[in-house]
């Protein structure tokens, strides 16, 4: 099986993993995913700018990357959230589309186990704008995915870089 190509969409029946930072000093046992867990990071934004493509929020295709591999690749403690690709697409039904696409890692990360499953969610920075309405719309789209997430739990890599 050849590795996925950058920009190819994940099959809608696949499960994706999102690994946000664990909540800081926040009751982890009662943690509930929220819109904040799907805000594009500054790295996500700068990477998009460099490659002249849409901003992608980093996720993993669970068909190609196990939870343990994803945590190792992330290299830091993380909350592990699982969501159906289909649910993410649905969250974009109103307004700009939401797509979940493959995004091969750059070397040397590309050669590590599970690296092929790296992907990104596009459309979470849409619609553009700083006004209240645009903000609310973005928050709703993110929250819709967060609501569809199942919390797998807090995980730590075995080898911290």
């Amino acid at each position, binding site marked *: 099986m050849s590795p996925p190509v950058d920009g190819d969409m994940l099959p809608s029946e696949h499960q994706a993993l999102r690994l946000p930072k664990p909540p800081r000093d926040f009751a982890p046992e*009662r943690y509930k995913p929220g819109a904040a867990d799907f805000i594009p990071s500054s790295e996500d934004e700068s990477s998009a700018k460099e490659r002249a493509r849409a901003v992608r929020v980093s996720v993993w295709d669970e068909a190609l990357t196990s939870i343990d591999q994803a945590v190792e690749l992330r290299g830091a403690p993380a909350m592990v959230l699982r969501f159906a690709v289909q649910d993410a697409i649905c969250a974009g039904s109103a307004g700009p589309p939401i797509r979940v696409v493959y995004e091969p890692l750059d070397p040397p990360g590309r050669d590590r186990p599970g690296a092929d499953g790296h992907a990104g969610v596009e459309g979470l920075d849409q619609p553009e704008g*700083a006004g209240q309405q645009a903000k*609310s719309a973005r928050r709703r789209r993110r929250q819709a995915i967060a609501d569809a997430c199942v919390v797998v739990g807090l995980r730590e890599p075995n080898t911290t870089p």
Partner: protein
Amino acid sequence: MDVEDQSAPLLELSGAPPSGNVATRSSHVVGLLWRAHRSLPVVNVPVGLDADVSALLGLSTALGREVAASVREALESDPSSAKAALHELDRHLGAQKLLVEGLDHLGRGTDEIFEVIAPRRDEVAAWLRDHAGLRVAVRGREVGVRPVETPRWDADVLFKQVERDPERYVLASAFHQWSGEPASRFDAGSLVVDLWEVLPRTIREVMSLLVVHGRPMSRALASHGALLNADVVAAAIDGWLVDDVAGSLRLGAAWYQHAPVQAVERGPLHRVLADGLAKAANDDVEPGVALLEAHRHYVKVPDIAKAREHARFGALYLLDHARQLSIEAKHQESATEYQAVAELDEKSDHHALGARGRAYRTHYEHFNAARAQTEPMEKTLAGYREAVDLWPENALFWSRLVRCHFLLGEWSKALDALSEAYTDARVPPHPRRDATLILRTTERLIERDQVVPAVLVATARPLNQPMTLAQFWRQLELGVEVDRIWSPGGFDVRRHDRALLQLKERDATWTASLGGVEAPGTDPRDALCALTWLLASEGLEQPFAQIDRETAERARPLSATTASLGEPARWAAALAHLYELTSTRKMPVAQHDAVIALWTSARAKWPRLRRPALGPGEAGDYVVSWAYQDVEPAVDLEVSPEGRCCWWMRGPDLDDEGEGSVDEALAAVGAALEAFAEDP
């Protein structure tokens, strides 16, 4: 003048010449032993800080000028080791055995200053033990002697009167000789005093000098420049006051102990001896021994300038003099004198101190300057640090370094230093290690009213003698006033006023409490740490700047402590995080103030409000989110860099959002937040 031309012996050995280890206080008996073992060179180890050097210089002088010169050079070049000097002696002596007198004087003294030279003294002691054919000590198996018949008195009767004590027999005989009458009092003190009364002035003068000299003196040095009048010396030997053993003049131990030489007389006598010996050194008469002794006497005068001039084999007596000044609470003078030793040490032609001596000097210079209040404590601390780097085995130095850190308010560094003392056995394990590093440090901190530091030190390691601090723990149970609390992993809580801290143990659980706030812990430190978190969270309404940067950074990682302490600790951790963001300019002040205003108002209304999740949002927003699995609804607040708020609430029958000021946001979400307040 040969010794056999002097006095006839009063005593004789009662059996075959002894071997191995023997004991006597009588210089007369030492003379008998020497005569019985003529082939053995004599080494006298005197009492004093320079005992080892004195012994080696004395022996090398007796072995000839060439040996004396090489041994002297070796001892001058490295005052911290005798290896080179012993090598020179080995080269010359080969398998030759020695008559070693006073080896027990090289034992460890109780004063710390002896530790400065302990390695060198140990080297010399081991070498002398190996080379001793006969060892003569003050205590041990007495040498068997009997009186020699004499027509002047009934020797057997007199020997019985002094309870067969050879030293007192010689004194009683001398008294009879000098007074023409038999002695009437037979204890050593009375015999010396009574004898002193009947001695001619010239004899007393010589005896006074020898007493003040305090150790044997070679006849060559005694006669040079008429330091001691040769005829008077001969008369003293003839009259059994002084013994000449292998060319050195010596007194019995009772003379040093009981001779009525007054303190006021001693200074001038030291001066006479110092000048005479300095002249001998200058004239190349036994220059090694002469220099050593001149230096010692100049310190005793005291003429410190001259003593410095004649310091060649270390500056221990100068250190000791500075130490005496310190004991007399003349701290400024003491510090100045320690400083002067540093200047001596820095001379390029020779070094007066080894590493330990340098450490000792440095430490006590700053110790005394601190007590004289002539230097800032930071300088004292730097001196203490330099000293432990030079002499890491010294537990007392570490103890003072730790205390100094505490007194400067550097509690974390103090504990680091304490830990460093144990690391890699820098202070090697010994029976007094914990007593000095832990107990002594704790006790001194208690004396300085440093209660919490005392707790931190007392609990730094498990101790074998926990009861030693029982009273302290009892006092803590009753309560002690403090104005600062900190424990590793916790907040640094400082108060403007003093408040009662209580620390008690019940059923293996410790509880720390202050001002109505109580925290449990597995040990005193843990309880104190928990208390600081609770106190910090209580202080949310306090001005933010009260939490220092270092603490904020330490508090940044999510710790097991905060997780186990629940919401108050989490609030406190968030506070530290926010502080870090503003102090590193990652969060604008307006944004920070808005977040704090939100929290302060919300917590004022619901003191048991759960802490929200926090994190950066888009475009510099800061997200404050109450979203819990067990509570509906969810409340999100996004605070812009300018301090404006967007809010969003969602849940069953609730879907609201808006934008406005902090007050408007609170008015909008206030009711929803009530759901996140925990039941009391």
